[in-house]
């Protein structure tokens, strides 16, 4: 959105006074409107968004790996096509999100470098391995399902480019979740071995999926400010509760057991009570001690390093084309 020009002679009279730009920002937030790239924004707001959007982008990119692992082995051609399309969608989501982050003054290269140097975070869930085909179902049903609960409110995030990217992403994620559900349904309707494969996979992914909503509200340092800025709309625990409420009837349709013996309907509160989440495991994986942290980063780094000469070639070619078209240089003599 456009900001009306601010007269230059208006300056804050004291350190405590709110500048006109800041007032405008506050007004936009109060009116639940969008902040756009050229609008003034507090540095902390910008930093929070860069952190959140780039982490989200990295999660999409690293998240391609556990499923990419099964493209070559998908058990039917239909499943192979669907899986390819899905993993490819994730690359697309990564692209939208990197673009949204770029509007905040960071480059894709900087973000990529931080990722492969191990300095940037991504969703911990992708540090778990995908040893069986049923994991393609669980990742869709549980991981994408949790992602949707997290992300739908982000469509209304105060930062315009992020919110708009999330609209597109949520449409596709919703489709992915159905695919995952359908993979599990097919397995649960199949042979004993297939049913066991599905249940084992749900057992492995259920708790990590619940951890995707982040630490409990009383242990989530950044949440309050993000909610004030209309980036975050619901607390971690609220979203987790909503997710479990959504899963229970779906698990019944599937015929899988959710691996929480304490899970039961609380008539009084109108929500499901659930067992204790193992936050030690969450923090362990977050700190790099999960089953596949090293492998995920190594593969990303390998792809990046192995592709360097290709990117350099594309850049060099583009420069030569630009030079040739402006007539400033004819540098294609090497091949003439």
């Amino acid at each position, binding site marked *: 959105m456009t900001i009306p020009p601010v007269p230059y002679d208006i300056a804050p009279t004291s350190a405590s006074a709110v500048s006109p730009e800041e007032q405008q920002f506050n007004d936009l937030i109060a009116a639940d409107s969008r902040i756009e790239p050229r609008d003034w924004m507090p540095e902390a707001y910008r930093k929070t968004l860069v952190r959140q959007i780039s982490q989200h982008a990295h999660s999409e990119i690293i998240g391609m790996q556990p499923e990419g692992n099964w493209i070559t082995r998908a058990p039917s051609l239909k499943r192979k*096509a669907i899986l*390819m399309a899905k993993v490819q969608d994730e690359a697309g989501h990564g692209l939208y999100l990197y673009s949204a982050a770029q509007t905040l003054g960071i480059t894709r290269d900087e973000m990529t470098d931080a990722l492969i140097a191990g300095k940037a975070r991504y969703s911990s869930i992708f540090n778990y391995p995908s040893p069986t085909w049923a994991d393609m179902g669980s990742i869709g049903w549980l991981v994408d399902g949790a992602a949707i609960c997290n992300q739908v409110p982000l469509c209304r995030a105060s930062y315009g480019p992020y919110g708009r990217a999330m609209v597109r992403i949520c449409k596709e994620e919703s489709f992915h979740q159905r695919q995952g559900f359908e993979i599990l349904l097919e397995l649960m309707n199949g042979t004993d*071995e297939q049913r066991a494969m599905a249940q084992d996979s749900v057992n492995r992914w259920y708790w990590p999926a619940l951890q995707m909503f982040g630490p409990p509200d009383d242990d989530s340092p950044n949440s309050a400010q993000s909610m004030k800025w209309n980036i975050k709309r619901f607390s971690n625990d609220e979203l987790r509760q909503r997710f479990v409420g959504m899963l229970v009837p779906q698990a019944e349709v599937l015929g899988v057991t959710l691996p929480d013996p304490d899970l039961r309907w609380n008539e009084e509160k109108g929500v499901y009570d659930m067992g204790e989440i193992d936050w030690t495991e969450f923090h362990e994986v977050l700190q790099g001690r999960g089953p596949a942290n090293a492998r995920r980063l190594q593969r990303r780094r390998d792809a990046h390093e192995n592709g360097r000469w*290709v990117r350099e070639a594309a850049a060099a070619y583009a420069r030569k084309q630009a030079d040739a078209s402006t007539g400033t240089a004819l540098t294609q003599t090497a091949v003439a």
Partner: protein
Amino acid sequence: MSTPSRTDAVTDVVTDVVTDAAGGVVTDAATHAPDRGHDHGENEGHGHVEVDGVELSAELVEGPSVASHDVAEYALWLGDDSLVLAQQLGWWISRAPELEEDIALGNIALDLIGHARSLLHYSGAESDRTEDDLAYWRTEPEFRSAHLFEQPNGDFAHTIARQFIAANYLFELYSRLAGSADATLAAIAAKAVKEVDYHRDHAAQWVLRLALGTEESRARMICGLGDLWPFLDELFVDEPLIDRLEGVAVRPSTLRGPAWDAMAPVLREAGLDEPRGFISSGGGRRGDHSENLGPLLAEMQVLARSHPGASW
């Protein structure tokens, strides 16, 4: 200042997705197989994903069209080429030099798997076998792919060299097959030709970028082209089957000239000479394969074969 309203389309989408996520999905997913592909309607050009291969009816002429034995064999040749190439390209997704290429190579692989499914579905009807019976339950000598498609991904330049030859061959093939006396083959080809036209454009652009980019990329492109060129000849060999399918199949030898005419200007602009080296004796159409096919099939078939009779 134009303040976007929160009650606009965004809200509609949000509501829609929430409904999906919060319970509607149960009955929906249970009753609707996700066979409708993606609706990425707003995407421009070819850069969108469409799992149209998932729903075969759009590209198949439904009805009494069961191929004769010879036509089924011919469809198998073409289907195997696409399947094997798609299997190779699928490996790149999450490993490409840049995200845009993860997407582009993924698109190409998806198109090819769509072609393979249509062709194998048609081929299998004659022997009462499904596309998956053919893909997962045939042994290596029963495959009919040409050696070019079986060649490993190598580095990105090798993949591009393979794509460059394959897409130009397939474009010329499908352009003509669209006029086949066999209505099903004609319909499949008419759809496929538009897609492989994009594939050859993608390959040509990369041949130019790599050949004219840096010293290293040029050396790699020359190497890639040299390593893949020996497998060009096999594509243009007229096997006896072709004589029995006059008007139905496209005679491979007639494609050599047009395919070369399409490739030559790109090579010229790239400053690349036609490689003069080995020529592979081929044999894929008779079930004699390169050493690459066995491991490729082992990987592709392993899960399906561990669960005979299961459906997925």
